[in-house]
């Protein structure tokens, strides 16, 4: 049984048919990436999984359990945690307060302390700046904070929405290294990216999304050498 499986979901914004029957599955311990251009439906897919949008048709299953009866905030308790697009840190709260907010769904203080320790080990920069107000962090640091905050909920699967957006190439590499490390420590990752080359570099499998439909689905290595992917998303002729 897959850790997360999505079967034929259709999501609408009002009358706009954004997702036209998407199915995908993620196994425990994988990094899976969802690539595609602007408006392909990547973010919509993530928002549907995390319950912020409700699909009209289709199901999202975690460990075989249908999530449609749960509200967005309840899904966090089920073990799905999201790093939103554009980071979405609580700008006026400190780094520590942001992380505590991420642990809102956890009640065990030992676990919270452990997670805090883990985040500070992954991102020593955050430890240095823990009393600083999040809005004054740099873009890269905010991305670290958003990622750390999502980890505070001890998720079994982490949904990351465009972590490379607006970051310098050095920082993108750093973030991707850390995603791999998080994955090695046992968290499954679903990574949505426009930077297809980087994403396919760390993922085991990938899905290519185009105008609300999955057009390709294969291992990362195969996708990287696929001529259409190369042409459309990797900028190669």
């Amino acid at each position, binding site marked *: 049984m897959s850790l997360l499986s999505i079967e034929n979901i259709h999501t609408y914004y009002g009358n706009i048919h954004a997702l036209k029957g998407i199915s995908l599955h993620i196994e425990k311990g994988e990094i899976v990436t969802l690539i595609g251009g602007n408006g392909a439906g990547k973010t919509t897919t993530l928002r549907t999984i995390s319950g*912020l949008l409700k699909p009209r048709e289709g199901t999202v299953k975690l460990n075989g359990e249908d999530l449609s009866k749960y509200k967005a905030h309840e899904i966090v308790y089920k073990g799905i945690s999201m790093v939103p697009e554009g980071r*979405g840190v*609580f700008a006026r*709260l*400190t780094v520590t307060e942001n992380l505590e*907010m991420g642990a*809102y769904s956890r009640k065990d203080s030992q676990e919270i*302390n452990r997670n*805090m320790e883990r985040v500070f080990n992954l991102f020593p920069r955050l430890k240095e700046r823990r*009393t600083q107000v999040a809005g004054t962090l740099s873009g890269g640091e905010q991305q670290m904070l958003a990622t750390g905050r999502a980890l505070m909920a001890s998720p079994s699967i982490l949904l990351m929405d465009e972590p490379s957006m607006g970051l310098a190439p050095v920082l993108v590499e750093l973030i991707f290294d850390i995603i791999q490390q998080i994955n090695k420590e046992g968290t499954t990752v679903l990574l949505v990216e426009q930077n297809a080359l980087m994403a396919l570099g760390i993922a085991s499998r990938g899905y290519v999304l185009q105008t609300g439909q999955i057009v390709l689905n294969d291992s990362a290595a195969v996708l990287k050498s696929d001529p259409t992917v190369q042409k459309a998303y990797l900028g190669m002729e």
Partner: protein
Amino acid sequence: MSTFDWKKILQLGLIGGLVGVLIALVGMVEEFDERDIIAGTLSMGWTMLILTVLVTAYFAAGTSKMNNLLSIAAGALSGAVFSVVMSILTWMVDTFDLRQTLVNASPNLVKILTFEQGIPNGLIILIVAGAVVGALGSAIFILPDRYRKAVSLGLGMVAFLGLMQDIIQVSLAGFEGVSDAIVWMFGRGTESGLSVAGAIMVFLVVSIGNLLWETNAPKVNSQFNKLPQKSRRSLKWLGYGILFLVIIYLPAVLGLYLTEVVNATGLFILMGLGLNIVVGFAGLLDLGYVAFYAIGAYTVGVLTNLSGELTWSFGWNFWLALPAAIALAVFAGVMLGIPVLNMRGDYLAIVTLGFGEIIRILALSDFLKPSIGGSQGIVNIPPPQFLGVLVNNPQTLYYFIVAGAVLALFISQRLRDSRLGRSWKALREDEDVAQAMGINLVATKLMAFATGAAFSGLSGSILAAKLGTIYPHSFALLISINVLALIIVGGMGSIPGVFVGGLLLAGVPELLREFAEYRLLIYGALLVVMMQVRPEGFWPEATHKRELHEDSVDVELVAEGQEA
């Protein structure tokens, strides 16, 4: 590099002068001239003008990097420009009769502005005085931070004591020994304001005291922290004990009128604490907050009144009606909350505004007249009884209000640090992300509305008991705005800020009733200045907390982790 920015300084002087003209033409100079800050020497009207010059000169001195001498020259210049503008006004008022359009442009104004020396002598004095005061203003700018703070605090205190003279004198007159000092400080009772010697005294004591405190505070603090845990705690309790005694004895010292003022302020603070939860903690802009105040008051009114004119006359005991009033307010809070769950910002503000008006108009309506009295309101609400004591005068009501405020204070403090408080904070920052953190938006929002409504309902119930009669016009939109303003002035989300805001926006205006005409003008000016200079409020929450964080990060981290 020293540069003298002529243009900017002249511009500032002109702006200051126009503010001065405005102050004179709305009649403040003339009316406030009756009241002295320092008896026989400095009137309140002049104080306002001097304050304008001081502020103008302060900014003029900061226009560009200058050495001290040039800064003072800049201040003097801007002060002189101010006075020139005022002189032109004076000359115009004296020469042409402007009273047809500008009612306050009276000969008396000319007399005041020329120091009764006539034109042109008075005008020369005015310009020289402007330059001197301007120089003083820039001198304050030059002073190092510490001294500047001490001097401004000293001047502020003189102004405050001078204003409050009669009140202080009346309330302290009964105490032997103290009265001698008071007489010396304030001069004879017939004059208003401080005596000259008293003013100098107050200024020196406050300034030097502040300086000493600023230099020694770190030492005192570290010594306090060095004390063993036990004596630290007992010192703290001693502090609380003194505070408690002051609160208990306050009405006896203050007398009837002042206690009444304190009570009115207390009701505002109580409402402020509630709205602070909705607006400050949860970030939901509620402009119809007065509705819950009305619901609390009307519930108590309907349930307890003995007028016999209404359809229902339940004649309940107040203490039975109180929980009912709070419950109904909470219910109304939830009822308002449900339809606005998906609204944010401006939309929420408009809907809540409408809600407030609906409740007021319902109270006023003929439709509900048989049951809640329409425009005649509800009369003959008996005062509550507590342990056999009738709570019917300001001094007994005071304890009732204090008890309510302490309860509200305790509850908001506990809520702020709770899980619910944290989810309000997240909600205020970003609703979507809050939800992605596992926060239940619906429950969190409704809890904010319900808690806020409960405090307002309590406040309304006390109002009904206090007045014995309630009318729809007591629940105008302005109350909502006032409560919101006091939160903004005090500092959004800050609990001590509510008290500061309450004292400033409810207490002080109540004391200065004779100037009620200008209340809204000053109010508006204060808010505009606040937003420009100190948008975080007088006693902001976060920075205060952050300051404390700075040196105790590790302890804090561990403690918070365990708590959560």
